[in-house]
């Protein structure tokens, strides 16, 4: 296996970030159009993508778009903007690979410090209500709830209930949702798995590199991505974390950076229409 050293990792992370920007663009036209044009230019001309200014301009577009539409911006849009600014600052430093590793590591650490703190401070997350609610109302979890016995009729009934409640002229103040006996334990399992893996990630990225848990931070991040985005396919978020994970991984193992590249592919693989393929296979 060919090891990916820091110089190769730097060259690759620039390409991976460009791919991220192309595959998961900000939907806002004022961001999407200029960033796509810049991204194509970055692909075409290597010296351009190695300049600090190039990433600074992309970062400014991403962040300006995110802040201008703050009332509808997804969290990971901010993270993508911060990441491009981090690339810019690192490329402008005297030792880009080391600066990039540091920035990537601390961006991931900050992400999970805040995410874990917010979850631990939220009573309806801790008692499982949040995941119970999400499993019954968020279509992104349909594949998972199908395994827990939720039928298309139940989903339809829940969808109609929520629509009836939020319809502008609705006089309703409550609606009842339908589930199966497997949903509450599934919600509890998801709650505690999320708290466990995000807490572990927080500790792993905050403690010094030589601490035992610090040495396994990459493994924890890859497991987190492989499990979380299998269930909730917010692939743009997953890719952003993996890009940062890839570059901060150093040379802790020959396989490590290849494992990150495998994880990128895995996240895209999750987007296949699995239910359709399974149904098709059953029909023969």
């Amino acid at each position, binding site marked *: 296996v060919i090891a990916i050293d820091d110089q190769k990792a730097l060259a690759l992370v620039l390409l991976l970030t460009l791919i991220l920007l192309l595959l998961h663009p900000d939907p806002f036209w004022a961001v999407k159009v200029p960033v796509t044009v810049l991204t194509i230019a970055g692909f075409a001309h290597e010296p351009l993508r190695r300049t600090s200014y190039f990433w600074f301009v992309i970062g400014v577009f991403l962040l300006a778009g995110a802040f201008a539409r703050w009332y509808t911006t997804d969290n990971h849009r901010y993270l993508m903007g911060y990441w491009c600014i981090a690339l810019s600052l690192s490329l402008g430093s005297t030792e880009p690979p080391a600066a990039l590793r540091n920035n990537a590591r601390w961006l991931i650490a900050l992400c999970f410090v805040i995410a874990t703190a917010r979850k631990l401070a939220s009573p*309806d997350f801790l008692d499982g209500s949040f995941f119970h609610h999400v499993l*019954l109302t968020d279509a992104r979890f349909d594949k998972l709830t199908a395994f827990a016995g939720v039928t298309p009729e139940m989903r339809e009934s829940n969808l109609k209930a929520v629509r009836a409640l939020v319809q502008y*002229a609705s006089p309703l*103040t409550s609606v009842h949702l339908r589930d199966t006996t497997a949903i509450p334990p599934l919600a509890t399992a998801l709650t505690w798995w999320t708290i466990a893996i995000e807490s572990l990630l927080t500790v792993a990225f905050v403690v010094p590199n030589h601490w035992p848990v610090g040495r396994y931070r990459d493994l924890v991040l890859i497991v987190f991505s492989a499990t979380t985005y299998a269930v909730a396919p917010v692939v743009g978020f997953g890719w952003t974390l993996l890009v940062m994970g890839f570059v901060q991984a150093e040379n802790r193992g020959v396989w490590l950076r290849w494992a990150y590249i495998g994880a990128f592919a895995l996240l895209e693989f999750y987007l296949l229409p699995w239910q359709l393929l399974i149904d098709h296979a059953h029909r023969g």
Partner: protein
Amino acid sequence: MFSTVDSPSARLLRLTLVTADGEARVDVPAQLTQLAMEARTAPTSARLHGIATTLARGRWVPQELTTTVQRYMQLAQNGNAHQRPPDDSLRFLMIRLGLLRMLSDHERAPAPPVHILSARVELWREEFDAHTRTIVVRCIDTATASAPQWDERK
């Protein structure tokens, strides 16, 4: 941040116009989409009051009930797609059902505007009771604005 039921998508606005013919619940007009999303994401009394004021100052008319073919025929014949205003009984029914549309600033009214007395905006928040599998909504803030004098608006 994927950590609580309380999120912008779990907050809703209920808009009520108080008219001379009674109260009418209306959908968020296109002109207020952004302000409504802001109010759901970061609710403040000022934002709710801003929405209520705009609703109360707006000119509201019954929605036009027509098919695509009828609309085409009217455009082909007259060059404008406005249909005949609804008669009084239908107009009254449409007001009560909240089937009203807020005109944009310079839009010509296709029918006499509805007499608005005031507007009320309520912000409701969803809560989920996992034991009973019930989503409950509770009103957490309200803002009301009176309409300008009818003569002033005309």
